[in-house]
């Protein structure tokens, strides 16, 4: 029985296997329509989410499985003081796989060591969000045809952005990757990720506040939202939220084949006018997220198709 808590738990070979399976799902959706007949996914979301939750649920339905869920975090037994461990043990009696989002970092890990079924981390605080990373990887792979030899820019909230941390971790294992880290000083990438991941893998990186100066060199631009819920102080949020806004004028500086990604939801950091630009890939990312979650569910449930 295997869970997925951190993207680093997957080897490059396993990621490649998930990508190949995803491509096959896209090419032959009917082949997978009954792959999970009789199986149940429990979505335990202790924090608001639209996209990730719907994506998991759609993924399971498209595999022929069913979904059980709670209406909201407020309606769960957690409000009565039930521990994550007890919740995981209980839900293990009802479902075949759990997808958990929790505001506390490490909660899905605690669930995974107590559950008797696989647990998928669907986001824990500002910590990890491995299935978003799988969506990002499939998007990059489908747009560029490779996951190596890329200059990847991350822009916005690099401090609390769990999707950024997970994607950097995943891409650091490929060769020829250069990271360009664009953020205000207060939202810089945590030093442990720079030190333990980027520098440890001898990867090139640039840290800057000047978005326009580095935009022309990027193969991938990964935009992020400054997340209000990660701040203890509203004033700091208001001051930083509009630090970087991608507009059609700025896009003129980007390469003709630069792919723009965003984990969504967007607030105003990408102008709506960019949506029709063929370089905008963030809605493809949403689709790819569902496909990669299907691929992952099949792997964790050890379903052969």
């Amino acid at each position: 029985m295997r869970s997925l808590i951190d993207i680093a738990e997957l080897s490059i070979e396993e990621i490649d296997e998930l990508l190949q399976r995803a491509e096959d799902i896209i090419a032959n959706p009917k082949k997978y329509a009954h792959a999970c007949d009789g199986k149940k996914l429990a979505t335990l979301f202790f924090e608001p989410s639209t996209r990730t939750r719907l994506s998991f649920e759609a993924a399971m339905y498209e595999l022929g499985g069913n979904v059980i869920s709670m209406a909201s975090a407020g309606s769960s037994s957690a409000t009565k003081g039930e521990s994550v461990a007890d919740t995981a043990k209980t839900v293990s009696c009802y479902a075949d796989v759990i997808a958990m989002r929790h505001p506390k970092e490490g909660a899905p890990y605690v669930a995974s060591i107590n559950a008797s079924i696989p647990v998928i981390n669907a986001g824990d605080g500002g910590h990890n969000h491995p299935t978003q990373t799988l969506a990002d990887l499939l998007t990059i792979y489908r747009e560029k045809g490779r996951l190596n030899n890329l200059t990847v820019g991350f822009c916005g909230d690099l401090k609390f952005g769990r999707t950024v941390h997970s994607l950097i971790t995943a891409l650091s294992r490929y060769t020829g990757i250069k990271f360009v880290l664009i953020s205000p000083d207060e939202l810089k990438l945590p030093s442990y990720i720079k030190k333990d991941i980027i520098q440890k893998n001898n990867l090139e990186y640039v840290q800057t506040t000047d978005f326009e100066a580095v935009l022309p060199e990027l193969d991938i631009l990964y935009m992020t939202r400054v997340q209000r819920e990660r701040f203890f102080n509203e004033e700091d949020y208001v001051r930083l939220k509009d630090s970087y806004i991608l507009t059609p004028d700025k896009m003129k500086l980007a390469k003709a084949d630069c792919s723009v990604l965003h984990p969504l939801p967007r607030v105003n950091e990408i102008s709506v006018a960019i949506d029709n630009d063929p370089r905008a890939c963030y809605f493809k990312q949403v689709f790819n997220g569902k496909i990669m979650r299907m691929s992952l569910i099949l792997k964790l449930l050890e379903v052969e198709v």
Partner: protein
Amino acid sequence: MKIDSIQNGIVLDHITAGKGMQIYKLLKLDNLDCSVAIIKNVNSRKMGKKDIIKIDADIDVNMDILGYVDPGVTIDIIRNEELVEKRRVHLPEKLENVLFCKNPRCITTTEQELPHVFRLTDRDNRIYRCIYCDTKTQ
């Protein structure tokens, strides 16, 4: 200064000078009802000065705490007033309820029954990280 030798017990030797009392507290030696001696600032050829703790009872010492606080400590096992074994401590791979996570977003802040577990991620720089949230020890 003369301190009686011990019959059956252990001697924590080569404690970095000044750390004797910290180790005494961390190992909760004040809970023992046997004789315990903390000897501070003993002359040492190798270390210049060192602390020593003598415990006149056969107890299990938490090697992880010793390894984390002072990895140069040696543990001498005494039987019938004779040194029968000398053990060295090492920087432990894992620490349980020795360090406590300070990250306010960590699951350990709301689930009080969870053990605080840290794993060694950088031996050279003695860095431990919380197994739940990856926060580094200060």
